[in-house]
């Protein structure tokens, strides 16, 4: 049973612990070489910057960019998520299983591609060329990405199934309760994924201002997108209502 000794929990200082750090060492070495000063800068010829200053700059950028992201994304998600969810839920509930399968495999993606092709790649629409009114811009953004969001929710509902929702309905749950307790937890990963996609959009919309260096803003955006994407996968296990 010797091979079972590398179970997930390893006591401090054990051989397995050392092996784990040996596995981490190459990547940590590369990341340290690229990040810690002055080694990384010397390697690529940039000016050395104290690490502490770098971290303070990053924190400032994160606060600024985070506030901007929340202010921009919140109204969009507040409109887009309920609307897309309602459309996907209605579609899913009304169509038969076979029809849902046909929708998932071919029809919906084709419609979404047809709708989105020009809008997603068109540079003159949405955040890429903000209009005078923020509300109009937000509505245009919703219109632009709504088909994709509906498709996303459709896949989530197809994979999750509606058994829990039906059971809750039988136990006379209102739609609000159903949404809050059953459907929202199932759709959480999709919502985080949407947030990540929106963050990328917002990132492209705002050019760097003079207060922060472009590099730090980009770093803050990268961090936000990474966290939102990781959450969309991390939260991927839907919570059961009956736990």
């Amino acid at each position: 049973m010797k091979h079972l000794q590398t179970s997930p929990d390893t006591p401090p200082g054990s051989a397995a612990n050392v092996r784990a750090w040996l596995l981490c060492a190459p990547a940590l070495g590369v990341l340290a070489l690229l990040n810690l000063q002055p080694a990384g800068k010397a390697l690529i010829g940039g000016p050395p910057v104290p690490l502490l200053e770098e971290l303070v700059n990053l924190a400032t950028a994160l606060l600024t960019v985070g506030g901007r992201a929340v202010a921009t994304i919140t109204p969009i998600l507040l409109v887009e998520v309920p609307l897309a969810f309602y459309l996907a839920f209605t579609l899913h509930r009304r169509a038969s299983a076979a029809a849902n399968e046909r929708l998932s495999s071919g029809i919906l993606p084709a419609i979404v591609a047809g709708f989105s092709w020009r809008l997603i790649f068109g540079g003159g629409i949405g955040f890429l060329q903000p209009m005078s009114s923020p509300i109009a811009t937000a509505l245009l953004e919703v219109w632009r990405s709504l088909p994709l969001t509906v498709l996303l929710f459709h896949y989530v509902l197809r994979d999750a199934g509606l058994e829990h929702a039906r059971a809750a309905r039988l136990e006379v749950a209102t739609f609000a309760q159903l949404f809050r307790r059953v459907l929202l937890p199932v759709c959480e990963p999709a919502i985080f994924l949407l947030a990540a996609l929106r963050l990328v959009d917002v990132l492209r919309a705002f050019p760097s201002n003079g207060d922060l260096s472009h590099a730090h803003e980009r770093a803050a955006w990268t961090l936000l997108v990474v966290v939102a994407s990781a959450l969309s996968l991390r939260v991927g296990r839907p919570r059961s209502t009956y736990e």
Partner: protein
Amino acid sequence: MTIERSALIAAASVFLLAAASSDTSHGPQMITAAMATAVAVAVATPFAIALGRIRFEGRAFAFGILILASATSPALLGSAGTAPLEHFAHGLALGTPLATWIVYLQARQLPHGLEDAIVLDGASRLRVWVAALRPALLVATPLVFFLCAFDL
């Protein structure tokens, strides 16, 4: 069609697209991108395995470094330069955290009980990990190469 086959086709398409869209002046860029991808995936995979499969002392610290590096590496290096070493370092800085995240998220999905059961049946732990992480590697490799090659 399996996910591996789809990923292979996607990888081949990306490579062909890269080759087709690049003229002769981009040749060295493709080579440095391929080298950076190889190194990034090679160092990221064991790191991700350690983070995802082993609960060791100092794991939170290693995790913190990964999260920080995800944000700070592109910032410190800025946009990719034209020199091969700059391009290589930029690709490595972008690719290593990204590949680590992708492989880590796949690595943590495999139940420990199942892994132990396969090992009891005679397979080596390395073989289990390779089989379990192949889809993630097939996604991470072309993605990192794409990012490096096109300076995204």
